[in-house]
């Protein structure tokens, strides 16, 4: 996305209509099946070729509390969260008052006519929906009624906004995997809503959608966690040990779902992978470390609290130099925080995770396609560098559906790193050093348990050791080892994914951001440009930073470099400043953390404030 869309946002309307450029907010109760209706809505708009995003704002509970689904349609292809709601759908008595207040001037409000309605606003058009009546009308099992009720607003929206009915039907079919019965029941309810609207409403309101081309063609609609799971399966994952935690669980769920289709041995029908639900996060990371030590590709997926619990074990993997891949689908911390809200608040604690002198490799995917790609990159790096690699995604990227490029099939062979086989050892006539830096990159050779060579074995420990893995308390051995580890960290700088840089000639403003902030940056830059401020943009994809990032920060061209992130303390900013102290004076932290993904407006306004 960051490269495709470059026109300024437009609120213009041709003949009074506002086409493909507004927000819909659907307010329902969680556990009431509204997810299906919302997905159908999103998918049909997507299939109409319209740039669209859907963000699910759900409570940390299972059933009965308010949930909102925010859909943005943007002919300009802006996929960031946008403030302001033009089309409001009210299905929840508990929040109907607030929900109606949130409606933008000249917006429209659809509501279940059973809801208590607060004072009406002059500028707003109201569309009551006879939900109960329509549901009664259909003959469906009582148990199902609540669930299908939400299809009514889909029908109303379909009529009012001109959504293509065939796409609705197609989306339903997709959603129910072709199962006729539910498809019919739900589509019938959509049509009842549609017809009721048609009969009772004269559609003078301005909001419309219409088919577009040039944007969604061979794109897919997918969430980041499914992409991560698929990426792991296509990159040889052998063990997934995990402990359930929102918003990371769907990574393991995706693997659970796809693995039997993708990773059973055709001849024997036996598994080339294992999924183990651990008793907690300490055990999950312990299993990852044990398996990686033995040569498997092992990963775990967790969120903030899990990262904290893994701190001691991660230090062991770092110091004993054992690969490990950890996905952190960030949610709002500190502590249990807001399990169903997004944040990028684990950057600092993960970068420096564990006591003693430790620094870790962090990857920052920005799109589902990148989640898929980095699943492989993480394994390659972990095995190449023999160290834990963290992939920091977040709830917004991980759990929401995104328009994404199709995933590229991994062309590069898997990099299993410096592992000495029996043959290699024969060649070396058995003499090698587990922590001996033979070629200066700070990375030593390792052997795997089970290697039949007599000299293959070595002893792994988290205590001081010399180049031959013998226990040592000698100062020289210790320092020597730490020197090599930082040499290895320098090597890491050259191996991690390079940043994506969009440098504009004459730009005086540099912007550095990461991950799911990308759409907001893209849109903000367009706004800044129309305000006469050209900017260059570096999307950081990993820590530690490499030369390109240093050059960008150091560049004479930029008098200010804004570091934009979704947390309170400006965590990435702190790391960049302490890594490049020479340029600290020109770096400016732009950070916010309220549980929502960043909006273009916030980015734009924050930067403008510094350019007056």
């Amino acid at each position: 996305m960051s490269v495709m869309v470059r026109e300024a946002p437009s609120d213009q309307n041709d003949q009074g209509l506002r086409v493909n450029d507004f927000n819909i907010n659907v307010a329902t109760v969680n556990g009431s099946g509204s997810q299906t209706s919302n997905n159908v809505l999103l998918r049909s708009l997507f299939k109409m070729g319209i740039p669209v995003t859907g963000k699910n704002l759900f409570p940390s509970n299972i059933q009965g509390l308010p949930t909102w689904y925010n859909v943005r349609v943007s002919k300009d292809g802006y996929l960031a969260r946008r403030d302001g709601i033009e089309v409001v759908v009210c299905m929840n008595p508990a929040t109907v008052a607030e929900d109606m207040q949130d409606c933008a001037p000249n917006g429209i409000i659809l509501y279940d006519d059973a809801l208590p309605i607060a004072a009406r606003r002059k500028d707003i058009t109201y569309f009551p929906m006879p939900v109960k009546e329509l549901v009664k009308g259909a003959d469906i099992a009582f148990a199902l009624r609540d669930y299908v009720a939400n299809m009514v607003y889909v029908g109303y929206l379909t009529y009012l906004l001109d959504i293509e009915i065939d796409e609705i039907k197609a989306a339903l079919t997709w959603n129910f995997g072709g199962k006729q019965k539910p498809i019919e029941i739900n589509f019938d309810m959509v049509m009842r809503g549609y017809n009721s609207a048609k009969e009772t409403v004269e559609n003078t309101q301005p909001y419309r959608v219409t088919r577009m081309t040039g944007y969604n063609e061979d794109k897919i609609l997918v969430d980041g966690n499914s992409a991560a799971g698929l990426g792991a399966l296509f990159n040889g994952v052998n063990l997934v040990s995990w402990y359930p935690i929102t918003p990371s669980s769907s990574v393991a769920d995706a693997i659970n779902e796809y693995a039997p289709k993708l990773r059973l041995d055709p001849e024997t029908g036996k598994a080339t992978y294992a999924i183990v639900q651990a008793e907690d996060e300490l055990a999950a990371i312990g299993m990852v470390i044990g398996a990686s030590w033995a040569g498997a590709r092992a990963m775990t997926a967790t969120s903030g609290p899990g990262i904290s619990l893994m701190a001691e074990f991660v230090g062991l993997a770092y110091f004993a130099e054992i690969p490990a891949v950890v996905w952190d689908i960030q949610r709002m911390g500190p502590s249990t925080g807001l399990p169903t809200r997004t944040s990028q608040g684990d950057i600092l604690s993960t970068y420096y995770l564990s006591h003693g002198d430790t620094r870790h490799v962090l990857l920052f995917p920005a799109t589902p396609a990148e989640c898929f790609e980095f699943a492989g990159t993480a394994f390659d790096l972990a095995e190449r560098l023999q160290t834990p690699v963290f992939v920091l995604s977040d709830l917004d990227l991980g759990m929401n559906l995104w328009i994404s490029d199709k995933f590229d099939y991994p062309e590069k062979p898997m990099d299993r790193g410096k592992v000495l086989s029996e043959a290699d050892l024969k060649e070396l006539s058995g003499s090698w050093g587990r922590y001996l830096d033979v070629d200066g990159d700070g990375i030593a050779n390792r052997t795997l348990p089970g290697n039949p060579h007599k000299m293959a074995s070595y002893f792994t420990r988290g205590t001081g050791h010399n180049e031959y893995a013998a226990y040592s308390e000698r100062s020289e051995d210790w320092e020597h080892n730490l020197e090599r580890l930082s040499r290895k960290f320098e090597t890491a700088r050259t191996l991690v994914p390079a940043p994506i840089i969009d440098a504009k000639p004459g730009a005086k403003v540099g912007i550095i951001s990461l991950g799911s902030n990308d759409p907001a940056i893209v849109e903000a830059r367009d706004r800044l440009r129309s305000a006469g401020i050209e900017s260059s943009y570096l999307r950081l994809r990993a820590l530690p930073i490499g030369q390109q990032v240093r050059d960008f920060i150091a560049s004479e061209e930029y008098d200010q470099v804004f570091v934009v992130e979704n947390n309170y303390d400006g965590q990435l900013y702190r790391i960049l400043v302490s890594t490049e102290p020479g340029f600290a004076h020109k770096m400016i932290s732009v950070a916010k953390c309220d549980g929502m993904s960043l909006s273009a407006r916030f980015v734009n306004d924050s930067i403008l404030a510094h350019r007056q």
Partner: protein
Amino acid sequence: MDKVKRPAPRAPKTNLLGLEKTEYRGKPSTLCKGCGHDSISQRIINAVWELGLDQTQVVKLSGIGCSSKTPAYFLGHSHGFNSVHGRMPSVATGALVANKNLTAIGVSGDGDSASIGIGQFKHAMRRNLPLVYIVENNGVYGLTKGQFSATADKGQQLKYAGVNDMPALDICLEAIVANATFVARSFAGDAKQVESLLKAALSHRGIAVLDIISPCVTFNNHDTSTKSYGFGKEHQISLQELNYIPAYEEIEIDEYDDEREVQLHDGSWIVLKKLAEDYDPTDRFAAYKLLEETRTSQQFLTGLFYIDESQPDMTELLNLVDEPLASLPQEKVRPSREQLDSIMAAL
């Protein structure tokens, strides 16, 4: 059942692999002279050597503690992993999933397994992890200089640590309650019993817990302590006389009512010769009774308390391909381009 040929008492100079015992040594021990843990290391060397196991196919794992240091002191040609305190089981789990063909020996201490580690201990039992799980039990934290661990007897007194006023966790009871399939107790001072149990454990399918009382000569070895040499030598009562008979030795069948033979997963046998009253180690309930009684009467009973060869171990339950996951070639673990395309098409 059958008459049994006992294995030749005197062990031959070289084993099945034609290797001498010295080949199975590790680095010199840095433990205190006389530490029980060192004798257990010696037992492991003997058992593995006599079984003729290939060291390169064995892994040694441990947590943190004097006991957990010992893997460095035996089987010098096996990969070893001295991990973090109380978390050996999870590391072993990962290693065995990665390579189910490995023979895994886990060494832990009472602090490592009963205090900080009781959680992972429990879940390793539940999973029936194919691990020989040795708890070198001295009732104290040796490496941190003698504080009480969770297996210290209630009322016990130590010069440094004072009086312990909490009841002990019983490693064997804890194991059985959590569904362990091989549970035994022994005494570092009883070389023969420890070795027979080790051999049987190495032939067992699933988790094999050996709670070995292993005196800490520096911090907990005065005769009043149930974890001391003095007490052990004085009070140890063996439940059975144990004999391990490897699969390759033929054994003739014929009735003996003072003996039970249990066949192990790899075809070998453990022969239990009744000493006191008859006892059926396949009866989980009898095990409770026995252990609860000995606990309350503070008896020091050793032997094989419980065994169940019928349960699948964790790696079996995972239905894994025969080859170790760790050594699968890329073709086997990277699905095809077509498979990706069809998934993409569906999204």
